[in-house]
């Protein structure tokens, strides 16, 4: 009690940099607005919600850009627990744009069936808000809060189709495992706090480095914390929830989960590795190495066996996660830290564009075929050439074939591996190379359906693509091509992304 009083006496209200918080604030305002309006406007006017949501997202982009252009490089508040640096800005931009595309994907989709649109938008915005916070959090507590902030709405989104048992199942699985994982992570965090006597990442980093060697507790703490985020990025063997949830959840939600929330997981992971346990590399590097190799391989081989397109994409995104992890497995080594970070960010950007494009196509095609079977794509090219070509582009990009976005992302990943010039790096590069070939097995399979197979029950009625989807396709396809042909564009963002206070360089 005494101590508490003393602390209370010392307490001074922190100064808040509202400019730095502007994006979050805009978003928060927007979601409240949606929540309120939803109660008052009637069914026919629900489209307004869609408009507001997308407007909010675009509006939130404005402060992000302004912050990026403002001369103050790094803004820290709450004595370093919440930081706005280039890294976080880039990631916030990614989240917002991804969110915007997801809105575009959703807008026509959620019309179907009488579900509560208002809640949908509200949850979406909330989860995005959590992600923005995650990008800036530099403290165990704020990271934890941000994590839950983005997860809990996601659980509900996954189960958003109340009356669809699949959707329920998706939600419950995601929820139970998610909570379990975060519980484990929390345990790790508590231990971390115990050994470092602080929840501030930079201090943890300093403490851990102070004593050259580690006790069992360190290892336990690091591993459990990493596990928590390995779950978010659905790294094997913590991926089990992903396929089921992706398949069961509404497709736009799947898109959201597979892109945005995965990205959020990586953001947290990177921040932790770079600022909290940079010099505990001996602990986490092998761990990440194994995770990455397993993730790529298992994701691929399981994807080869899928018949449902969404489920296949789920596994594909798992294995893509493995590729993102690749450079982190050597990030601790001298000189490769910066490249690794660049690689992760770039991969996130490119992957977001491409994968959202895939989902846009899936939604468009599902409008007609009403089926998730890969075979339902037979002969797509013959009656919907544009969709066919675009899908081919996206899949090829995922497979990492020049000159499409995917290749530069993979290239930079390989580059940072080999730059480390360590045996582990080369070995992982080899695994990655083999996997990138195996991956084409299932991507090519879909292409084959699209181009070379007959149309199932020869139903070649034209596909009507709603305008929002068209816009989404334009954005994603454009991004995919530009990143591929002029990789410099993407790399600029990835390159200026630097984590303030990161010890690894």
């Amino acid at each position, binding site marked *: 009690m005494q*101590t*508490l009083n003393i*602390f209370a006496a010392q307490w001074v209200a922190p100064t808040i940099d509202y400019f730095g918080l502007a994006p979050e604030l805009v978003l928060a305002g927007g979601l409240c607005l949606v929540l309120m309006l939803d109660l008052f406007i009637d069914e026919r006017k629900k489209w307004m919600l869609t408009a507001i949501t997308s407007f909010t997202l675009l509006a939130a982009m404005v402060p992000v850009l302004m912050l990026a252009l403002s001369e103050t490089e790094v803004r820290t508040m709450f004595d370093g627990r919440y930081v706005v640096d280039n890294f976080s800005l880039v990631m916030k931009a990614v989240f917002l744009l991804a969110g915007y595309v997801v809105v575009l994907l959703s807008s026509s989709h959620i019309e179907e069936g009488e579900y509560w649109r208002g809640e949908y938008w509200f949850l979406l915005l909330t989860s995005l808000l959590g992600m923005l916070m995650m990008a800036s959090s530099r403290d*165990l*507590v704020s990271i*934890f*809060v941000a994590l*839950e902030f983005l997860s*809990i709405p996601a*659980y*509900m989104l996954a*189960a958003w189709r*109340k*009356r669809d*048992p*699949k959707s*329920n*199942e*998706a*939600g*419950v*699985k995601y*929820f*139970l495992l998610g*909570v*379990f994982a975060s*519980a*484990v992570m*929390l*345990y790790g*965090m*508590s*231990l971390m*706090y*115990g050994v470092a*006597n*602080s*929840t501030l990442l930079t201090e943890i980093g300093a403490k851990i480095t102070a004593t050259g060697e580690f006790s069992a507790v360190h290892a336990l703490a690091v591993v459990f914390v990493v596990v928590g985020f390995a779950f978010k990025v659905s790294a094997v063997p913590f991926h089990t929830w992903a*396929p*089921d949830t992706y*398949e*069961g959840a509404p497709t736009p939600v799947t898109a959201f989960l597979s892109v945005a929330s995965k990205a959020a997981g990586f953001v947290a992971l990177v921040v932790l590795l770079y600022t909290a346990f940079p010099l505990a590399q001996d602990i986490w590097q092998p761990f990440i190495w194994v995770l990455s190799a397993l993730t790529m391989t298992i994701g691929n081989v399981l994807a080869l*066996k*899928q018949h449902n397109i969404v*489920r296949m994409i789920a596994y594909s995104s798992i294995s893509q996660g493995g590729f993102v992890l690749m450079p982190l497995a050597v990030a601790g080594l001298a000189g490769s830290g910066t490249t690794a970070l660049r690689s992760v960010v770039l991969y996130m950007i490119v992957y977001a564009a491409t994968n959202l494009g895939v989902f846009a196509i899936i939604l468009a095609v599902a409008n007609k075929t009403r089926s998730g079977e890969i075979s339902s794509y037979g002969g797509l090219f013959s009656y919907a050439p544009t969709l066919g070509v675009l899908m081919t582009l996206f899949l090829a990009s995922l497979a990492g074939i020049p000159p499409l976005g995917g290749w530069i992302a993979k290239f930079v990943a390989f580059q940072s591996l080999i730059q480390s010039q360590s045996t582990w790096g080369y070995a992982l590069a080899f695994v990655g190379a083999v996997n990138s070939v195996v991956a084409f097995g299932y991507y090519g399979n879909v292409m084959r359906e699209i181009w070379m197979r007959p149309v199932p029950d020869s139903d070649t009625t034209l596909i009507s693509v709603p305008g929002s989807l068209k816009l989404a396709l334009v954005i994603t396809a454009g991004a995919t091509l530009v990143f591929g042909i002029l990789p410099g564009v993407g790399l600029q963002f990835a390159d200026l992304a630097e984590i303030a206070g990161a010890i690894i360089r």
Partner: protein
Amino acid sequence: MFVNQFLFLAAVLFCIGVYGVIARKNAVLMLMSIELILNSVNINLLTFAMRNGSTDGHTFALYIIAVAAAEVGVGLGLVLLVYRNKKTISVDELSEMRG
């Protein structure tokens, strides 16, 4: 102070919780086991906070309690959904999607 006893208690709780999550088929029971884990975490945090004489642990614990409440709310909601559709809350019934 007897730090280690508290840590030991927390570890035991943690293990029980994990056991519960893995062994139980009932969704509600799983939720409760998770609550156990969270509480073991809280104990840890508080113990360390007392030992180190910093308030971060307390803050953290408070946040965890709050968030846990939210989680339970959402969780029970989901369980209800399932129960409404499937008339069961045994999670093993929920294996429609696999492979």
